[in-house]
């Protein structure tokens, strides 16, 4: 396998890892007003993602960094074409991050409620915006031969962006609900389970539609199989959550994502930004890539770094593995910490 293909796979893995991990904290945050009926419940929900969200978000930074590092032509085409949506994503991520920390730096009802709402809003914006960006980069952007966007500030926001946005949000909502069912106890667990039982088949449809469309444009027999795996996993996840097997449902729902992103990136390969104007303007991995020397250096760095990262992130999940229950938050809780 050549290095460009290897790094295309690495980038796909990083985006998938980001969606798999940050997906549940986006989902939990978005579900705060839906499943968190009392303040106690909302605090429990926030505690379930408290130690994890920041580590999860680094997957986004690394994924974007890897796009820049391996395929600057992709990075420099994709980001300016969706300038305002990306800025909106940044605003969402910024307010969400500070809200996690600032929420319990002061103790009034109003303060707590405000920052909790900011966490929800910021997470919704970020999930929708990143979904839109991924939808656009796999289904098409109006770019010319130089990779420059044609048609003004909003030309990048077409149906591919909308589909991607809805797909990532739908996946994240159920992913967050199953995570809560797995990670908490008490009323939140029951409400989360009920949410997942009701919505999981519907919530997966946009994601499957997106993967299906990319497959129809450039797929192979392999991506067809991957798509089928994703589709079947929706049914498995649904069936398992209906019989309250939360761990199995979580695994199956993760396979939905893995199958879908494998289909999407597998079928899109080797194109990284398809042009809606002419397929002659498509940006491919060889157009966008850095030199083989740089790819080799990065392969060594990632070969050393990624296993270490996976090791200590797994350890974090192990340390915080216990199921949380919704007892009233101790008055002095979370003093030192976030």
């Amino acid at each position: 396998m050549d290095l460009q293909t290897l790094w295309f796979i690495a980038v796909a893995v990083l985006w998938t890892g980001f969606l798999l991990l940050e997906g549940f904290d986006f989902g939990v945050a978005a579900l705060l007003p839906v499943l968190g009926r009392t303040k106690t419940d909302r605090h429990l929900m926030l505690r379930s993602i408290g130690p994890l969200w920041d580590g999860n978000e680094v997957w986004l930074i690394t994924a974007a960094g890897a796009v820049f590092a391996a395929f600057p032509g992709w990075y420099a085409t994709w980001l300016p074409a969706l300038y305002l949506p990306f800025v909106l994503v940044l605003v969402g991520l910024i307010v969400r991050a500070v809200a996690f920390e600032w929420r319990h730096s002061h103790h009034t009802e109003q303060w707590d409620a405000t920052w909790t709402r900011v966490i929800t809003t910021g997470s919704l914006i970020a999930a929708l915006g990143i979904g839109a960006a991924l939808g656009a980069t796999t289904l098409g952007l109006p770019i010319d031969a130089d990779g420059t966007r044609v048609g003004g500030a909003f030309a990048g926001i077409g149906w591919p962006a909308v589909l991607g946005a809805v797909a990532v949000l739908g996946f994240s909502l159920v992913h967050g609900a199953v995570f809560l069912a797995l990670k908490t106890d008490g009323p939140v667990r029951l409400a989360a389970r009920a949410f997942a039982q009701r919505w999981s088949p519907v919530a997966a449809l946009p994601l499957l539609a997106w993967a299906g469309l990319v497959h129809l444009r450039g797929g192979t027999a392999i991506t067809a199989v991957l798509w089928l795996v994703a589709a079947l996993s929706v049914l498995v996840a649904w069936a398992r959550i209906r019989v309250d097997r939360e761990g199995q449902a979580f695994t199956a729902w993760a396979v939905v994502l893995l199958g879908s992103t494998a289909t999407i990136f597998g079928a899109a390969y080797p194109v990284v930004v398809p042009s809606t104007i002419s397929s002659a303007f498509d940006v491919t991995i060889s157009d966008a890539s850095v030199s083989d020397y740089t790819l080799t250096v990065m392969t060594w760095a990632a070969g050393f770094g990624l296993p270490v990262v996976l090791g200590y992130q797994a350890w974090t999940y192990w340390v915080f593995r216990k199921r949380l229950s919704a007892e009233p938050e101790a008055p002095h809780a979370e003093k030192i910490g976030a």
Partner: protein
Amino acid sequence: MDVLDIARWQFGITTVYHFLMVPLTIGLGILVAVMHTMWVRTDKPEWLRMTRFWGRIYLINFVLGVATGLVQEFQFGLAWSEYSRFVGDVFGSLLAMEALLAFFLESTFLGLWIFGWGRIPKKVHLATLWAAVIGSIVSAFFIIAANSWMQHPVGVVTDDATGRPEQVDFLAVLTNNTALAAFSHTIVAALMVAGAALVGVGLWHLRKRTLAGAPTTDVDHSVWRRSVRLGGWVSIAAFMLTAITGDVQGKLMYEQQPLKMSSAEALCTTEAPAPFSIFAFGKLGSNECDDVHSWTVPYLLSYLAHGDFSTAVPGVNELQQEYAAAYGATYPDDPSFGDKAGEPIDYTPVLAVTYWNFRFMIGMGMLSAGVGAYALWATRKGRVPTNPIAVYGSLAAVAAPFVANAAGWVFTEMGRQPFVVYPNPDVPRAEQVYFFTAQAVSPGVSAGEVLTSLSTLTVLYGALAVVEAWLLVRFVRAGITTGDGAPTPGHTPEGTPDDDLPGGRDEKSDDVLSFAY
């Protein structure tokens, strides 16, 4: 204003703002890790309380640094796509390595430290903080290696097909002398920020307690006293190290970017020996070098540039002509240069900016070291200063090293204009890699879009600054024991685990692996 100007303002505002958090994160992170280490080693309660108090400030600040750092990762592509294409073979990989090797370490282990009180063994818990702090320092190294490559591109050749730099020696990029000097300068400058915070806040609390008649024998008294003493020594030592590392940088600048050095001095014509300017008057703002006059210290600039008292330091006027001869008197008449196409090139940075920021940096650093020395003297042998001017002055001087840091960056970044990638003079002219700022901006993005993001981010950052400042002031005023309306939480001095932390008491005692069954 055209897209280029707006995008430059946006980069400047977002980066300087981000860099208010960064030095405090790096500097305070190191000091909090030292405090935590002292607690683990000595079991003295004041070290625990210091860890808790300063750790909380570290965290409030850290999260804003992370949040604003996100913008940095994306804005190279958003507003500077032609720059991103040009430098892609070197610059992107450094950013990606920063994320992979540093950010993961930082955020994962900080999460463990925050939520790990009483849950993981004491020494492992301490190690999580050190891991996070090392992550911050590694992160600083990679981003400074990336920045220094723009100042002094090494390890590359020009790709004949694309005209862009192609990396041939990654080790040369990492060991770039510009990067090593800038990295060490930045780390010690970050320690100055943390030292000043310890001194200012510590003195204020000591004075308040003394005026209120609080005992000088209790734990909280030693918390503030130790904070002041530690902060004072760190301020002085770090200042000396900034002077040494800054001197190394000055000598590199003389060789690598002589125009930046003469602009820092508003030195119009070549002089040997060259004097150092203390204070300039005249028309600095008009960028007409010949209208500037200043009070000077003879010979000093020659020493700063080359370590002797006779070396000629080239003046702005000569250098402008040299650069115009080498890199062109006008921008190429090409659409990629936007409004600047065909215009004359001014190789001299904005003199008022380079000159005054250079002096702000040095002056504020000296002020901060002076406050540190005062604090050590005023607290000698158990004394507590109560003079309001001195104590409030020290508190206000917490801002000084922040200003020094910001001024240093504004100086070095504005000082390399009009280039975004500065030509490396060690390389023969025909093989040099360089890139003008005017050609770096994203071609398809409109002024309206960049103006929208600039105003959105500026308003957002302003609002966040208000909340952050309010939170920090509130937290600092409240002090340790009443900061959250509760006694210092966590391990008691005897080391019994605290059970009212997240996941402590609230958890069922079952130890099943409930996450991944």
